[in-house]
């Protein structure tokens, strides 16, 4: 029977060409959109490499205060905030805090090496950052007082893979504002948010000896669970009281995260809506063509009933035919889709393409079956005696 369906569809290839093209297009659209969605989804499922709950970002603005006084004032502010009962830990950091969309990237190499590599994110932090952000350390440790007087760095898993693929990174040197010794390797760190790829990251220690205010004017606080508006107001007031003309802007990381997710999700949602419209159009087209085909084939269906097809056999045949047509369209679509990973069009992992192909193919089959269900029942309901007397 399958061979018969192939013969029938091959002989009617001109009539089926339109359907094949429609299915091909539907598949390609689903595949492309699917690839983006799968990519985002897989990233979303991966750990961030830090904890954002109960972490607040405090952006400090020193106003017109002379530069030389700023560091001292900031230290006073930190001491004051640390002493508040709702605050567990405070760290001084560069402004590229998680979800901030602010970046400080640079080519990081091993000393003396001159290889062009993808740029890395550079984070300036101090000893408390590991606790504030609960950054999991895979090897070695986060920096601490033991590193006083030395130049050290912690690198992320991805940077370790890039610079030290087959060896341990601990104790090795990297070139980042001088040669720094690596004391720890963290899990993949994704400060760019839930939907972003992990990018190699390096954390540079700023010890007590680092008395600049510039580049380190942001504070990250870990607060007690349940801490809220009251603490926020208290901190703002304290900052104003300590530094003449100082002001601050306090944002929980969870809020920053939501805002950032929205900026990624909004275009995605728009894309999905467009895609749904397109697919609905294709579905209506399929449905219409199938319906029309059934009406044109009444006499053939009557004949098939006469020579031994049951009603169920007829609807099975109609479904079978559209599935064969869909398979032709999918075969073409897969050929097109295979070019994406080969040419690296969307720049996502090969596994993402494969998953998207499987998803798109499954959806296309589902779509064709759903569109063919009613026409096939219509075909099954054709009375052979009536259909055969027409003409």
């Amino acid at each position: 029977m399958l061979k018969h369906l192939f013969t029938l569809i091959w002989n009617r290839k001109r009539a089926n060409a339109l359907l094949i093209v429609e299915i091909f297009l539907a598949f390609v659209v689903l595949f492309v959109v699917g690839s983006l969605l799968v990519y985002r989804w897989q990233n979303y499922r991966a750990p961030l490499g830090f904890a954002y709950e109960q972490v607040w970002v405090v952006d400090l603005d020193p106003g017109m205060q002379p530069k030389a006084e700023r560091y001292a004032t900031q230290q006073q502010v930190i001491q004051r905030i640390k002493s508040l009962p709702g605050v567990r830990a405070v760290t001084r950091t560069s402004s590229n805090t998680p979800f901030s969309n602010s970046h400080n990237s640079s080519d990081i190499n091993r000393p003396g090496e001159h290889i062009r590599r993808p740029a890395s994110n550079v984070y300036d932090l101090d000893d408390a950052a590991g606790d504030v952000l609960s950054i999991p350390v895979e090897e070695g440790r986060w920096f601490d007082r033991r590193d006083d007087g030395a130049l050290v760095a912690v690198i992320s898993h991805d940077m370790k893979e890039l610079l030290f693929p087959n060896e341990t990174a601990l104790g090795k040197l990297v070139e980042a504002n001088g040669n720094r010794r690596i004391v720890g390797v963290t899990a993949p760190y994704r400060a760019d948010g839930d939907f972003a790829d992990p990018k190699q990251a390096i954390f540079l220690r700023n010890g007590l000896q680092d008395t600049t205010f510039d580049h380190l004017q942001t504070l990250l606080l870990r607060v007690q669970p349940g801490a809220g508006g009251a603490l926020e107001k208290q901190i703002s007031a304290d900052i104003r009281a300590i530094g003449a003309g100082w002001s601050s802007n306090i944002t929980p990381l969870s809020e920053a995260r939501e805002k950032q997710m929205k900026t990624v999700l909004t275009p995605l949602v728009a894309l999905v809506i467009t895609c749904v419209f397109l697919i609905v159009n294709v579905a209506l087209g399929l449905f219409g063509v199938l319906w029309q085909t059934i009406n044109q084939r009444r006499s053939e269906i009557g004949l098939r009933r006469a020579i031994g097809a049951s009603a169920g056999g007829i609807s099975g045949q109609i479904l079978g035919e559209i599935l064969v047509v869909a398979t032709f369209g999918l075969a073409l679509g897969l050929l097109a889709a295979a070019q994406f990973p080969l040419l690296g069009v969307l720049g996502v992992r090969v596994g993402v393409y494969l998953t998207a192909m499987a998803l798109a193919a499954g959806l296309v089959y589902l779509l064709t079956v759903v569109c063919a269900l009613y026409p096939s029942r219509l075909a099954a309901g054709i009375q052979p005696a009536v259909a055969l007397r027409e003409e």
Partner: protein
Amino acid sequence: MQTSAAPVLQLTDIEKIYQTKTIETVALHRINLTIGRGEFVSIMGPSGCGKSTLLSLMGLLDEPTHGTVAVDGRPVQSYSDKELAGLRNLKIGFVFQSYHLINDLAVLDNVELPLLYRPGLSGKDRRQRALAALDKVGLSARTNHFPSQLSGGQRQRVAIARALAGAPEIILADEPTGNLDSVMGEEIMDLLLGLNREHGTTIVMVTHDEQQALKTQRLIRLFDGSQVG
């Protein structure tokens, strides 16, 4: 299997009424008919008198409003759609005035069609049977043609080959020569007569041609849905 005395087809007290919204048409009224094994019966009557309706009841394509149809002595009204389809496939071959060939299938594929609905046949078996049937109607040289490339007479011979491919006991032919000129009509008639004579195939044929009817063993006349002799 069945006793040879049982008639191939038996219609008892058949009534067929077509009910549409506005009108009720009595297409057949009190028909009692027995078709014996190996008989060649012709049916005649004016247009609209119920000949095609009668044939579609015999072919199990439709159900009577009242009365019973029995095949090999077994009434079929309790059969499921699937069982009826199987019975049609196995026992009955149809030939229509307008051939009803599938235009997008080559001659050989058209002839193989009934065998596709018969389980347990290999592709090779089907091909051989279809070729043998085409040989019987003298169209061995046209297996790869498409219906549109054939004359009316040739098309009807393909349709007969299709009916023959399944080796049915009964052939139901509804005005098989109605669209053909007299020479081609003659050919078809000879073919049917040969089948009946040599293979003992039971044939029920609707015709408008008295000459053809005279060549058959029995003539049933219908008028306005009733049997008139």
